């Protein structure tokens, strides 16, 4: 589904990604972990097409198509979803209008007629239930005045609305209380099928207790320095990152 090869990217002339290799297949759940500032969000931004970042080398293929060639909106239409670490507030744009524009943009891309108002509201109701998102939030401006946890819930709600093939969830667990974490994780699990895939970026094992990853990657200094099974997360929980940092830094020196 996703094949990333030797991906390099920079922002403001500073190289952040220094050769990322990653392959995700349908049905898989990958977790990306790594110390603060290692480039996890950068990777998600580059894959989603944030124009603030420049790709300086490498390639990324999404379902056989060149991902890096596509506009951010096309990536979305093709089935890529990014749950932001810091969801953006958009005062004055209602969630309803925003989601309707999103759904209909995708339908247009797929050569389908726009969704009727009743159909759309029914869909909203259905998907809201998955993450138990308050109706009040759905009728407000996008993320405006939402608490940290509400914003994260809203990301998963949007994911549910758009039914992506590949979701990248950047620290969707941070800022969530224990109940919310369960609800959000269960939401992600409910949306899981054999045909879609998820990349979760997280710092904590507790999310991985709910969302069972098949593969765990550790990103450090713009590279994936280790890839292993779920047991790696437990080891990190116990030992921290220092031992990995040391090994990598030794090799670099």
């Amino acid at each position: 589904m996703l094949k990333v090869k030797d991906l390099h990217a920079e922002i403001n002339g500073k190289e952040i990604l220094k050769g990322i290799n990653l392959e995700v297949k349908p049905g898989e759940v990958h977790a990306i972990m790594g110390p603060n500032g290692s480039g996890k969000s950068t990777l998600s931004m580059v894959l989603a097409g944030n124009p603030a970042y420049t790709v300086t080398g490498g390639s990324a293929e999404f379902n056989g198509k060149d991902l890096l060639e596509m506009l951010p909106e096309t990536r979305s239409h093709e089935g890529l979803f990014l749950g932001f670490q810091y969801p953006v507030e958009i005062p004055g744009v209602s969630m309803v209008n925003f989601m309707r524009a999103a759904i209909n943009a995708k339908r247009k891309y797929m050569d389908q007629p726009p969704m009727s108002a009743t159909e759309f509201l029914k869909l909203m109701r259905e998907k809201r239930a998955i993450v138990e998102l308050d109706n009040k939030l759905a009728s407000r401006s996008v993320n405006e005045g939402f608490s940290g946890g509400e914003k994260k819930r809203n990301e998963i709600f949007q994911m549910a609305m758009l039914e992506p093939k590949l979701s990248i969830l950047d620290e969707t667990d941070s800022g969530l209380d224990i109940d919310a974490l369960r609800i959000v994780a269960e939401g992600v699990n409910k949306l899981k099928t054999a045909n879609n895939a998820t990349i979760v970026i997280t710092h904590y094992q507790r999310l991985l207790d709910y969302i069972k990853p098949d593969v765990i990657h550790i990103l450090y200094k713009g590279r994936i320095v280790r890839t292993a099974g779920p047991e790696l997360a437990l080891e990190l929980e116990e030992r921290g990152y220092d031992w990995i940092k040391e090994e990598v830094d030794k090799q670099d020196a």
Partner: protein
Amino acid sequence: MQVNALQQYIDLYRDNKALIEDNSASLLNSFREDAFSRLSATHLPAKGSEDYELSDLDGMLAPDYGLNLSRLPLGFDPALSFRCDVPNLSTSLFMLLNDSWAETEISRRALPDGVIVCPLRKAAEEYPDLVAKYYGRAADGDNPLVALNTMLVQDGFFMYVPKGMKLEKPVQLVNIFAGGIPMMAVRRMLIVIDDDAEARLLVCDHTQNEEQDFLSLQTIEIFAGERASFDIYDLEESTRRTSRLSTLYLRQAERSNVLVDGITLFNGTTRNEYHCTFDGRHCELRLLGMAIEDEQRHIDNYTMIRHNTPDCHSNELFKYVVDDEAKGAFAGRIYVADGAVKTEAYQSNRNLVGSDKARMMSKPQLEIYNDDVKCSHGSATGQLDPMQLFYMRTRGLSEETARLLLKQAFMADVIEGVRMPMVRDRLRLLVERRLSGEKKLCQDCNEECPAHDTITL
């Protein structure tokens, strides 16, 4: 280049004094000589001088426009091609074609007892005492634009709502520019809302002929009596080749509540002045402005709010979206007199600039001469937030749609300020269409539109 654009109008007046006067009312005529001598002794403020940041008055007045001094009826029916952008409003509709009153079905129908809506010239003849009490009393004769209007004006719009009358139906005035030659319309509006009366007025400026030059020189005088309530929405939807010089003067008596809303959706070169003065205590004023500018359009809004009396509240909000090579200016003054205690005056100007070549100038100015006041002003000019744009695009919205939604959201609070629900809804739609790049805003014109079937020139 014209050395002095003003001179051609002074000459025009001198050479055609009799013609002008024969085709107007004696009350209007009695103000001309004074205006003439003031104009002869002055010159137009230069572009870039204080409060005239973008307004090239000389340039705007320089072209050789035709004036309809002999008040010849236009040889065609504007209803045939007029497309109203604010249809389906249940309003009492009146029309001015260039600066001539166009008789409409409604204008012959009776209004509630004592309410007068008619051509200014006719009002000056039929109700000379009433008109004399107000005409020229609010506008500042030293303002060259007012003097020019006063010297040349022959007709216009008069509206009177008597004491205690609550006019249920809004009044709508549609100004249409049309004609085969460059025309100048000299328009005067006099609006008197007497004590305890209530009314709303929607003014729409339309230019029909895209390929012709027009200039509108308009002075509006508004008097709100004690406890009166009045809304005026002044909507410009003209063309690139239309120039507009508008001076609005408002006087508010004790406990009156007024909303003035200047909306510029399409224009060429525009200067709007809003001079608002409180003459009694406990007045409320909401002054709103919105401008959507692209291509090479220009707009310069000047506002002056005079808090002369204690306990008055003013709340001002102007918003601009400026794209391409367009230019916008906002100069907002608030004056709080010594003794005008317990004044509350808030002013805000927010602008979105969408291109490197677009320009926005903003100049708030507060002059406060006592301590017991709550005043604030804020001005911010910025661009669309790239992170908001990106966020929306990751959900599948095209960049264009994302920009459109963000611009609409930006304008939302000025639109919400409209106190007439049907105008608010309509405006929301017009703004959306305007921002999405549609050239003509009205598409669903039909028989229900009050502009249809009403005009019988």
